[in-house]
């Protein structure tokens, strides 16, 4: 290792008394190593600085030395000076990364349901926040104060910078409790056409009873309670927020059809990949030529580049795959068609159940003709109404 840092030479020695040359060298504490016989002379290695001290020994012993190779750090460094730009490359790369990691490249907002991301981004822009700005210039306190003052919907907000990401976390006010405080009286209205199946009043006056037919928009429970005097006449009206549970039976028509003949994609298995870099909305493509397929799908994968998970850089690597297919005219069999329609019906029922309705009857059948199949019929559901509308009780 020491030899490498000091630099050493591979030398070819020949002459009359080469062995004597070796002996005189070591007597002067000049180290020699890897001495081997070659042709009519010897190859050996010695420290670079010692080479200049053996001139008189060479003269004394009648030897000639020829440098074959220069090795070690001093010689390597001298050679690398010719490739200054190449060596500067990693240095500038690290410098660029260091500079980029001090700028804002991403904004994450969590907890916003009433306020859209666009509204909040416009607010940030008014505060002077933009992509590429130095992190230390982000006015965190002003953003926090501004959000709380300008937007009543926000109950609590936290603003922080993590890596190159500005993170805004917020908790919004509950819409319903806000409106309850503000409006004097609220009615409970129907959102569907149907028949009243069951009714439970907690507050307000019911305008319907079990068995009544109602239409969408009809008031079910009124948010005002008339207070009579001793004579039975209305003395005054007290307003309240109508509250209760009303089950409405509704029939939902089901109409789904499926044309048996259709075009299917038959994938050949051939695909071509294109990689490109997206920087600030611009695509820098690494093109691999024209796409040789007539028909193809283009699924795309995107991955933002970040360092250590927190420092987001302004580059996104995109991978597009061109998958060849051929359009084939084909037709579903009766069984296949029925299965598809049954799956669609299951999805409709699943979506209804997720809304909290109860399915009480299914009257759906599959009707077939020469070119298509269709679902015909209806589903009877029980839907709970317990959300007040925003309509004021007059």
């Amino acid at each position, binding site marked *: 290792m020491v030899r490498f840092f000091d630099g050493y030479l591979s030398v070819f020695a020949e002459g009359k008394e080469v*062995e004597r040359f070796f002996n005189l060298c070591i007597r002067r504490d000049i180290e020699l190593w890897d001495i081997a016989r070659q042709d009519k002379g010897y190859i050996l290695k010695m420290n670079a600085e010692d080479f200049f001290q053996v001139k008189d020994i060479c003269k004394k012993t009648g030897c000639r030395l020829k440098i074959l190779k220069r090795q070690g750090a001093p010689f390597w460094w001298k050679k690398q000076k010719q490739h200054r730009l190449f060596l500067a490359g990693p240095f500038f790369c690290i410098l660029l990364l260091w500079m980029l990691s001090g700028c804002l490249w991403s904004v994450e907002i969590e907890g916003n349901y009433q306020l859209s991301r666009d509204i909040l981004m416009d607010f940030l822009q008014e505060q002077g926040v933009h992509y590429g700005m130095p992190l230390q210039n982000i006015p965190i306190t002003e953003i926090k104060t501004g959000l709380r003052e300008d937007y009543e919907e926000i109950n609590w907000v936290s603003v922080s910078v993590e890596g190159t990401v500005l993170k805004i976390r917020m908790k919004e006010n509950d819409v319903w409790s806000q409106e309850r405080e503000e409006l004097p009286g609220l009615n409970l209205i129907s959102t569907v056409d149907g028949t009243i199946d069951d009714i439970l009043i907690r507050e307000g006056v019911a305008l319907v009873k079990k068995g009544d037919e109602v239409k969408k928009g009809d008031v079910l429970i009124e948010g005002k309670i008339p207070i009579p005097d001793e004579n039975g006449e209305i003395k005054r009206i007290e307003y309240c927020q109508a509250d209760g549970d009303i089950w409405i039976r509704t029939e939902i028509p089901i109409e789904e059809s499926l044309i048996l003949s259709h075009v299917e994609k038959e994938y050949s298995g051939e695909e071509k990949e294109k990689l490109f870099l997206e920087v600030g909305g611009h695509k820098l493509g690494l093109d691999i030529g024209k796409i040789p397929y007539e028909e193809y799908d283009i699924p795309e994968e995107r991955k933002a580049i970040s360092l250590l998970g927190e420092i987001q850089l302004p580059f996104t690597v995109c991978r597009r795959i061109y998958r060849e297919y051929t359009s084939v005219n084909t037709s579903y069999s009766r069984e296949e068609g029925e299965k598809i329609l049954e799956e669609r019906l299951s999805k409709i029922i699943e979506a209804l159940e997720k809304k909290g309705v109860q399915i009480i009857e299914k009257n759906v059948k599959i009707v077939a003709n020469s070119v298509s199949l269709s679902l015909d019929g209806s589903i009877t559901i029980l839907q709970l109404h317990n959300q007040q509308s925003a309509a004021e009780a007059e």
Partner: protein
Amino acid sequence: MELPKDILLGASIITLVGKNELLIENYKGILDYREDSILIQGKHERIRIEGRKLVISNYTREEMKISGTVHKVSYE
């Protein structure tokens, strides 16, 4: 106290590791060096090392290391 023989007698010390490495201490210099034979001058005697592809890996005033295939070590 008994002094070591190499100091007392000026004897050369030869250390042979297997047949591929040989270390010599206490010598005056190299008399003859060929690929298959090296002749070294000790204090009172000459040492001949015979073998194949003999290379002097290290050569200083104190010690010499020879590598290669050693067949024979003899005194002359």
